[in-house]
């Protein structure tokens, strides 16, 4: 008996321990060699100038997103594969949960898909690894894109190289329940400040204390309130990306944390402990949102439909975005929700480019893809979508407002996962009143400073 147990124990322990040590993925060579291999043999030159080899070609395309996006993307893949029967494109798709954790390890180990969808704020993290092809190397037709839009680094251009292509126009939008707002006497179509939000929040609670003005969790407070307010106040980003120095001052941070405290104290937003169960992009599961207990919420143009679908009975409209008095910058971030890139480990980068050319520049593809990756990035695609009626009015209005209000884009340091986590923790502490704003600002400031020291 005892011997048997000891054998079982030893085996299990070894397994358990090895599982514990299994944290670092496959070994990785930091950089991957430039493998722009020309495909063997001759190929067919397409009417768009790309060479498709005659042999059987398989490329992989990975993205995250819902069913609608998957269906449309697969349909476009099918269209392309019908044109070039020797080309097979395999879609690898799923939820955004853990997508970048997986992508990071795949890029490092050289096993990433040929075409990858990347979050623009995470993209800078990968630049050092030299993982992606410059679209200009393929003579990619960028004429449908607005140069001022595609030229932004957040939309894929780094050091003059077009390493990614933006899939759409997104940004924060204010989605509000028009009837309820009118009933209470709140006008989101006018220009307003953060203080107005607090005033309106009180008004809503006086009107009916089961209602709140804004549905908002700590992650949205971080992304929407803190970053935007700081850019409006400072007229600059929190960090200087090139010199790797901090622009933010302790007083600025304290000021915005006091604003967050005021949002909680005046019950403009629900208590932090209530929203704890609906963190991240999970606000649409809040039963109070579903029951129509909020007047409005800040959301992204690309997720308006998700929020609306969770509580479809209200009469919604898109409102203006808050700007502080004497703002040095409008501060609202307007950028693509994702970029597409071709990895250098791809065996057939030119086929990938040919496919993406079809994806972005072909009218049939535009019609099929419609708004499944937010409002389309090219004017031509927007025209196509409007004509076919696939562009929702809310999304179009949201895109117009957010591009009108577009200000500074966040720097890569403060918007890195770690930077966001530090700020979100400060917001959470304010929400739980775990310390005075002064103490929280001071400790948060030193953590943020630690990112560049």
């Amino acid at each position, binding site marked *: *008996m*005892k*011997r048997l*147990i*000891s054998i*079982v*124990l030893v085996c*299990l*322990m*070894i*397994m*358990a*321990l*090895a*599982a*514990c*040590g*299994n*944290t*670092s993925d496959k*070994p*990785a*060579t*930091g*950089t991957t060699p430039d493998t722009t291999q020309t495909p063997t043999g001759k190929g067919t030159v397409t009417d768009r100038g790309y060479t498709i080899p005659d042999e059987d070609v398989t490329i992989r395309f990975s993205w995250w997103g819902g069913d609608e996006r998957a269906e449309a993307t697969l349909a476009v893949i099918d269209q392309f594969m019908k044109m070039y029967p020797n080309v097979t494109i395999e879609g690898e798709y799923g939820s955004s949960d853990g997508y970048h*954790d997986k992508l*990071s*390890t795949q*890029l*490092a180990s050289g096993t990433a898909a040929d075409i990858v969808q990347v979050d623009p704020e995470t993209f800078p*993290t*990968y630049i*050092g*690894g030299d*993982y992606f092809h410059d679209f200009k190397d393929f003579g990619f037709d960028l004429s449908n894109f607005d140069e001022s839009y595609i030229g932004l680094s957040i939309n894929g251009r780094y050091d003059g190289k077009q390493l990614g292509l933006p899939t759409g126009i997104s940004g924060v939008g204010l989605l509000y329940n028009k009837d309820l707002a009118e009933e209470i006497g709140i006008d989101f179509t006018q220009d307003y400040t953060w203080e107005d939000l607090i005033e309106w929040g009180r008004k809503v609670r006086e009107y009916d204390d089961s209602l709140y003005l804004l549905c908002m969790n700590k992650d949205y407070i971080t992304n929407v309130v803190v970053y935007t307010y700081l850019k409006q106040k400072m007229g600059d980003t929190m960090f200087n990306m090139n010199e790797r120095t901090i622009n933010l001052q302790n007083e600025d941070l304290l000021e915005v944390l006091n604003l967050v405290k005021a949002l909680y104290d005046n019950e403009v937003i629900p*208590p*932090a*402990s*209530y*929203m*704890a*169960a609906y*963190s*991240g992009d999970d606000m649409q599961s809040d*039963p*109070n949102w579903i029951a129509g207990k909020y007047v409005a919420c800040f959301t992204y143009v690309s997720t308006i439909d998700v929020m609306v679908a969770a509580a479809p009975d209200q009469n919604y409209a898109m409102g203006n975005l808050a700007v502080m008095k004497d703002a040095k910058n409008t501060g609202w971030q307007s950028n693509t929700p994702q970029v597409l890139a071709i990895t250098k480990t791809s065996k057939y980068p030119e086929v990938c480019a040919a496919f993406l050319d079809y994806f972005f520049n072909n009218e049939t593809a535009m019609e099929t893809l419609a708004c499944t990756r937010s409002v389309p990035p090219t004017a031509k695609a927007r025209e196509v979508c409007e004509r076919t009626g696939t562009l929702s009015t809310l999304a179009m209005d949201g895109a117009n407002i957010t591009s009108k209000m577009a200000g500074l884009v966040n720097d890569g340091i403060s918007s*890195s*996962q*770690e930077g966001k*986590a530090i700020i979100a*923790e400060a917001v*959470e*502490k304010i929400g*739980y009143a*775990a310390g005075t704003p002064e103490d929280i600002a001071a400790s948060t400031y030193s953590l943020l400073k630690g990112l560049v020291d």
Partner: protein
Amino acid sequence: MVNKKAKIRKYKKRDYQAFLYLLPWLVGFAVLQLYPFITSLYYSFTDYKISVAPNFIGLKNYTKLFTQDPEFWNSLKVTLLYTLYTVPGKLLMALAVAVFLNRDIKGINLIRTLYYIPSLFGGSVAIAILWKILFVDNGVINAMLNTVGLPSLQWWGSTKLALRTICMLEIWQFGSSMVMFLAALKNVQKELYEAASIDGAGKIRMFFKITIPHITPIIFFNLIMQTIQAFQNFTSAFVITKGGPLKSTYVLGMKLYTEAFSYFKMGYGSAISWVIFTLIMTVTLILFRSSSAWVYYEDSGDF
């Protein structure tokens, strides 16, 4: 046991064929377990980030972890608390249910199966999500509390309750320990109980004087297994609370994941994994040491 050396010499060349048959396992072990195990030790002494080649930095990761990282001690505390709640909780629950099921009544097999079901779901994400929905502020559990006149609780929102709610999820999955306890209970000789009852011992006395001593090997086994598992907990904290609120459920496993896979600090993550490893090793060894004092083996075999 007398002539150990002579025994070893008995192996013939042919006997080494065994390694051929063992090869699939050996290769799997070497590539999937041993190699990552050793490289993670190496990485823990480097500043390895995913996109940059590793540089050797000595003990810096460890000194940073122990002296500068404000999260580490909190995570360690949370992990220890989690272990202290779940391990005894799960063992007591499993033993109680096993005792309850160790009887001959009609339909006992069905009841046993039903009780085992929660464990079949294992540490799955779906169950964690279901658990989350059950315990949200306007969820089923609070509705049930309200109908019996009790106030609602913020199971996930309160920094005091969130960890315990997660522990309940773990304790609820007591099935595998329960099955082992049940087997052990069946193994206790009936004669002992008969003799004791003739001597006038009551049920409770019999339980503590006969049952418990006889099932100590299984208690020991379950204790070790559950402790190792508890120290490595990750799923429930990651899926349900994301470590919050206010890092009150930020177990070491989650910190490891966040540092390594969200912040890409592989070197630092590896260092954390080695700290967890050492912790598990130490606790396991202590438990093994203590076993001679309280674990009773009928065959009195020695290790």
